[in-house]
């Protein structure tokens, strides 16, 4: 290796070059521990990627053998989830996906308008003091643990639903939707508030110079300009409510069925894993299928986050022009 190449290598990667060369070469007198420390820092820096890959690999390795034991088509399209049946075990996640979908859609119907409205109010209409207070309260709202939300749904919202609608059980799609809406609103508010703040002030000034008032400015200028950021906010809200486990486990009821009304109890993908992994025997098909569901969830979260990130990066790129 030429001297220049060694120098480059030391500068760029440090450690694996023989110490003797460092002593004779460019790095004489340098703290010899430093390359070691820099390697530790580098590995830690990559840890996030390492863990994401590791999560995929470990969950996939536990779940993959199930692929040879059941057909993918049945897994994805059959509504029959009977893992412990004595006659014939069936592993179809369609009903579970329908459960997840119904709860998420209801939650988004509630959370998106309220979240966007609150973000507009915080960003454009409120005084600085109100703004700070609301932001702190919403941050605290995001901090309430999901098991507590589940408890609230189970003990507080459930009885209210029974009283108000006469439904036989209080734990159902409606309950899960309300709780998930409350849980995903903080994400939506904070991301869309960021998106609105990222719109340059010159846009606001131009709108006001043309005689627009606040509402016209929000509606005609800020919404179109922050469109993609608001979309990212909604996506992250969706991601959050699909991945949520404890709250839906406790407040959507435990019936594996295709929901026909908002008062039907359902079971979601996440809740199924949480409820059944404890009983499944390691190495069993049931156990492996639960890990497969984990892979489905992982892929979904990955796609949602990637899309949201690309959208947000798109805004940043445009803002720099």
């Amino acid at each position, binding site marked *: 290796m030429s001297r220049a190449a060694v120098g480059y290598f030391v500068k760029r990667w440090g450690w694996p070059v023989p110490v003797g060369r460092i002593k004779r070469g460019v790095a004489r007198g340098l*703290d010899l521990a*430093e390359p070691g420390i*820099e390697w530790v*820092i*580098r590995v*830690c*820096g*990559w840890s*996030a*990627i390492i*863990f*994401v890959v*590791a*999560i995929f690999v*470990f969950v996939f390795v536990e779940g993959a053998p199930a692929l040879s034991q059941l057909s993918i088509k049945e897994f994805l399209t059959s509504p029959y989830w009977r893992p412990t049946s004595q006659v014939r075990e069936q592993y179809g996640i369609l009903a579970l996906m329908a459960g997840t979908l119904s709860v998420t859609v209801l939650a988004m119907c509630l959370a998106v*308008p*309220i979240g966007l*409205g*609150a973000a507009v*109010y915080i960003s454009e*209409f409120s005084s600085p003091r109100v703004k700070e207070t*609301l932001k702190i309260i919403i941050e*605290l*709202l995001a*901090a*309430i*643990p*999901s*098991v*507590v939300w589940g*408890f*609230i749904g189970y*003990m*507080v919202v459930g009885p209210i639903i029974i009283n108000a609608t006469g439904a036989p059980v209080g734990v159902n799609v409606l309950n899960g939707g309300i709780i998930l809406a*409350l849980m995903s*609103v903080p994400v939506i*508010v904070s991301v869309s508030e960021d998106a609105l703040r990222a719109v340059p002030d010159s846009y606001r000034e131009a709108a006001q110079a043309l005689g627009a*008032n*606040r*509402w016209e400015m929000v509606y005609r200028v800020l919404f179109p300009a922050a469109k993609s950021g608001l979309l990212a906010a909604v996506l992250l809200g969706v*991601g959050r409510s*699909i*991945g*949520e*486990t*404890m709250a839906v486990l*406790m407040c959507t009821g435990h019936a594996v069925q295709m929901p026909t009304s908002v008062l039907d109890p359902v079971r979601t993908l*996440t809740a199924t*894993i*949480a409820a059944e992994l*404890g009983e499944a025997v390691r190495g069993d098909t049931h156990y492996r299928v639960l*890990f497969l569901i*984990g892979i489905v*969830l*992982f892929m979904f*979260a990955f796609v*949602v*986050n*990637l899309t949201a*990130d690309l959208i947000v990066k798109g805004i940043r790129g445009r803002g720099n022009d």
Partner: protein
Amino acid sequence: MTEQEIGADETVLRVVRSGDGSAAVRAEEAAVGSARVSRLFPAADEQIGGLETFAPTDVERAKARRQGIARTIFMLMAFSLVIPVILILGYLVVKAWPVLSWSFLVTNPENRMTAGGIWAPLVGTFCLVLMSLLIAAPIGVLAGVYLNEYTGDNWLRRVISLGVMNLAGVPSIVHGLFGVGAFVYFAHMQRSLLAAACTVAVMTLPVIITSTREALASVPMSFREACWNLGASRWQTIRTIVLPNSISGILTGVILQVSRAAGETAPILFTGAVFYARVADHGFASWAPYGPSDKFMALSYHLFTLSTSVKDVSEGLQFSTAVVLVALVLAFNSLSIFLRVYLRARKKW
């Protein structure tokens, strides 16, 4: 009428010429002047309209009304987030109040969890949080250092940020599955406090990475340049200049991690938390309640079992467990927010 006006006009002019410029006279002159304008340009009266000039037109009134309505609706939306939550939290506290006491905190659950307190879960959560902090804090802080100090604004940083974001977005139950696959079975930790702490540490890593990175980014570049000019290497600069100047910002992230870790349930369901594992409440054993290889009770899991699987448990017990958990998490979160606001206020550069 015309003659009258002209007559008045002459009077006014005479008065003005005579130098008696009192306000009343000036006003009269103005009135007469405008009368003269309206005589010359009959249409101007409607266009300028005296004091009516700056009054809102119908279009403007409609605009203002729409703005008012929009503002009110947005305000209602914002407050509709806050008020129900305050009501619910208030309801929890009211329901829990009769049971909450010091002895509730420091007694073990008894009589098949239908009596006693929450000492064992409280201790378990404390051990879990402490251990996950010991694992996540060094890795997270160094990762933040790497992202902010060692990578340029290039694809590598982009990919790592994407990794951090994805790690934060992976559903908590999938983290639990990862813990089962990687720590419980692959690393042979079995279901234990250590396996659960590792799982929670991986899950909360993004919180520490993100806030460390922000804290480091707020240290001005000139500080580093000054240090480099004195001949310090990159790591020496980080150790002596960058980290000391951002330590309090990093602390905010660490406190947030604690609050997250204390509330998580799904990742510990299958990696070590159990239904019931009593801890010694006196003697030598009470100083080391849970070893790293023991199964443990955690407050969040305890709340889950109390509300779904324990028979004949009183409401007071359930509600007060929930209140203690919420109070714990919110206290740490408020501390972090307070620290952040305080730091922003006394920032020197």
